[in-house]
């Protein structure tokens, strides 16, 4: 039985079947954990975050967006040795924001995807930094150059990845 997430807006909304909704986030988590073993530079990408942005924007539903973000964020937290909830909170905010943005602008455009991903990557990092420093008192540092470079890299990857994931979308 397919899981349907649609919004009531007039804009074009998409749905994903159950297998896609389940295995794409899991595959993103798996690749994020495995690929850096062979290619350490891959650590600067954040595949789960890109998947959250993609699903949130495509579904154009704030509730489904934030729930998707929360679940994937908590799963990502589980792979780390840190407190569970740091990524969960950051991804929830990103999921909600991305779906809100998806309602208002055309996110099928390549430029919009690139800039949107960069923006949400930075939002994600800011929220993570604030929560990690403010609540958990983790020793995290903010380096603008590193964050901007990572945002740029994730924006470029998002353009390619979203084009691939577009094939899995089904018109609602």
């Amino acid at each position: 039985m397919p899981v349907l997430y649609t919004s009531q807006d007039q804009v074009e909304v998409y749905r994903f079947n159950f297998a896609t909704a389940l295995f794409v986030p899991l595959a993103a988590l798996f690749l994020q954990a495995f690929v850096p073993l062979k290619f350490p530079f891959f650590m600067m990408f954040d595949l789960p975050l890109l998947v959250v942005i993609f699903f949130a924007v495509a579904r154009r539903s704030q509730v489904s967006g934030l729930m998707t973000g929360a679940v994937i964020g908590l799963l990502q937290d589980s792979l780390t040795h840190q407190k569970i909830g740091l990524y969960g909170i950051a991804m929830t905010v990103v999921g909600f924001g991305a779906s809100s943005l998806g309602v208002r602008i055309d996110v099928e455009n390549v430029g919009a995807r690139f800039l949107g991903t960069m923006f949400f990557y930075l939002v994600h990092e800011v929220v993570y930094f604030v929560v990690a420093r403010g609540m958990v008192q983790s020793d995290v540092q903010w380096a603008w150059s590193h964050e901007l470079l990572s945002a740029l890299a994730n924006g470029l990857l998002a353009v390619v990845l979203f084009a691939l994931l577009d094939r899995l979308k089904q018109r609602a």
Partner: protein
Amino acid sequence: MDNLLSRHRNVSILVAVLFAQVLGLAVQVKRDSSGQETRLIRLWVVEAVTPFEKSLAWIQNTTGGIFHNYIYLRGVRAENRQLKQQIEDMRLQQVRLEEDASQARRLQLLLGFKEKFIQKTVPAQVIGTSGTEQSRSVYIDKGFADGIKPDQAVITAEGIVGKILHVYDDHTSSMLLVNDTSSGVGVILESSRIQGVLRGMPNGQLTVEKILSDESIQPGERVLTSGGDQIFPKGLGVGVVSAVKPGKDSFLDVRVKPGANLSRLEEVLVITHVENRSPSVDVTGPVRAADILAQRLPSVPDKPAVDPSLKPVPKVGGATATPLKPVGGQAATQQPKPAQGDAVQPVKTATGNPPLDSKKSSLPTGSAATGTKSALPPATASAPQASSSTPNATTPSPAGASAQNPAVKPASTTPAATGTVKPAVAQAPVPNKTVAPAHRDPDKSAGPASQNKPQTAPVEDKPE
């Protein structure tokens, strides 16, 4: 109120979800000091992800193994030659190191020094990472079934890499790398002997904290574990100092380049058992080819009588040996010395075929790199320095050696020779136990038991 919530339904849900997560986070922060329990969600995610990682790692190893072991063999012969040469060099180096190590063990024994010895390690393969830069931890394919427990040290041949954080199941564990910000390792700088705490920085670099700015540290100095953290045994390699800068609050900012490549770990060793014991001293030394040969050959007949005119020279080792009279520093040097004629026959030193032992004794440890490499078997290599530095006491070779080498003089006539028995003389805490039987049983004076006697000479016999 209901109207407000329904009007802002999405925002309300967002706030509720965020609140729930913040609450969960606060609970975890509160319970932080309670221990390292594994959360159920963490276990589920790890159980879901690691089988794929293990499968991929297995496929990669198998295909890589086939390619490297059967297809890509270019340059293997040259490499083999080079490795054989390296083995020879290392054998020679081993000779010197064994001497140093045994000397250090004896000194440690004297001091009642307790040390941690790595007794068992488990090799493991790294199968995955945490996937984020904020958490520098990796997963390995060993778990409960292999005796893995939290807080066990993990090392590679290049140096330490981390410690076990969680054990999830029989074949999965997570490991915290030393360059994580929450990691801390007690370290000591090799030459300056300054101790500090090795910590990871947010950018993944390593730094040694708590070193005062008035200390002198040079880049390139090796960093070793100090054992102070009760996780890593003392003396394991960590890395080298890469940079030294003034830091905050009159402390130095000492950067360390890790010996192991922490971002490309493949195989690691988990130290599953560490024994806390005093170093042992092998008093009799290893069994050597010359000892076995001496045992198989006919025993040396006792000399019937000694010419009274030779009486001033006390003779030990034959049936007519007189009891040892400690006279100043000479006592220890007298006893192991058989009469010159006694040991000649079994070891055939007079025939021009020096025994294995006498070959060694004529080869000082410093000559290891002088081209006599292959003639020196590693198993028999522990004695040369002792026998060369203490010629007065080596048996059965001394007789033969003295016949060949005029520098090897009878002990009783060289009181000064006790001074050449440098640290070995002062190290032995149980000299009399080994010295005495040599007098009681003259046959053994030419046997293996007396090989190391000069090193066990009593401290009190040393000339003041």
